[in-house]
């Protein structure tokens, strides 16, 4: 196995979504190829660091503000629909059918 072949399989290897035969071949390559070993480990760390980073948390104050804006808009939409129901569901139309 060449290093370029290893790289093509890296995502499936890290996600553990490959057959046992291919996995064994990759692990055999990792035994002697230091470069692929380093790339594999540091890519795994990259994923873990981002996953654990809590980057872009939604602050409580902003969360409350966003909630109230969403619910107000949804209520407006609900009232609009109630005041102007779609033509097919109109009671007046039903009455004429």
């Amino acid at each position, binding site marked *: 196995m060449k290093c370029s072949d290893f790289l093509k399989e*890296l995502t499936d290897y890290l996600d553990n979504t490959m057959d046992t035969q291919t996995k064994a071949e990759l692990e055999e390559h990792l035994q002697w190829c230091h470069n692929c070993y380093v790339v594999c480990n*540091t*890519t795994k*760390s990259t994923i873990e*660091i981002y*996953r654990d980073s809590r980057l*872009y948390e939604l602050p409580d104050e902003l969360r409350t503000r*966003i*909630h109230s804006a969403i619910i107000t808009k949804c209520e407006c939409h609900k009232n609009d629909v109630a005041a102007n129901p779609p033509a097919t569901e109109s009671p007046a139309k039903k009455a004429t059918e």
Partner: protein
Amino acid sequence: MEAIENNVVEPPSEETLLVEAARAGDIKAFESLVRRYDRNVFRIAQHITQNREDAEDVVQDAFLKAYQNLGQFQGQSKFYTWLVRIAVNEALMRLRRRRPERMVSIDEDVKTEEDSMPREIADWSPNPEQQYTQAELKDILGKTIQGLPPSFRTVFVLRDVEGLSTEETASALELSVPAVKSRLLRARLQLRERLNKYFKRRDGDSRP
């Protein structure tokens, strides 16, 4: 009696009941769905837009659109995957508005495989993130992911940060599974390459 028991249909999940109630006009039920997923949608939106105000607007618009279109939600995918699709489209639209000079598309495939080939092979210090304060680390990670093309960082955030499966990511982005895998590999390798300069082992580091 046994035959009847075997035919018992699984009860609908709590989420399915919330979606059905919201569709019938129950705003409280919809509020529960907002509370369940707002943090995720905000994180996805900010990763894509790289702008806090845009991310706020995306969260509001995505949930409002979801509410207005609940009637079209078929229940074939999870509600969350459907919501993510709406949020990603809203976020990309805002990014296009902000950067009209640049092509912004989830279909973009801007670089060749060569651009993702590792150039620098350097081992990292053990627990490299601990060399930095939380604030420094967030700054490094934010700046680093900002440098990726939008289509790569979108796939990375859905798959690796939010934990969607490859199939769910493909469904949310309306991409094929091989396209998701290709972008994910390149996103991961490019991030790794860019983080090298912050995390690589220095001469004075002791071996683990």
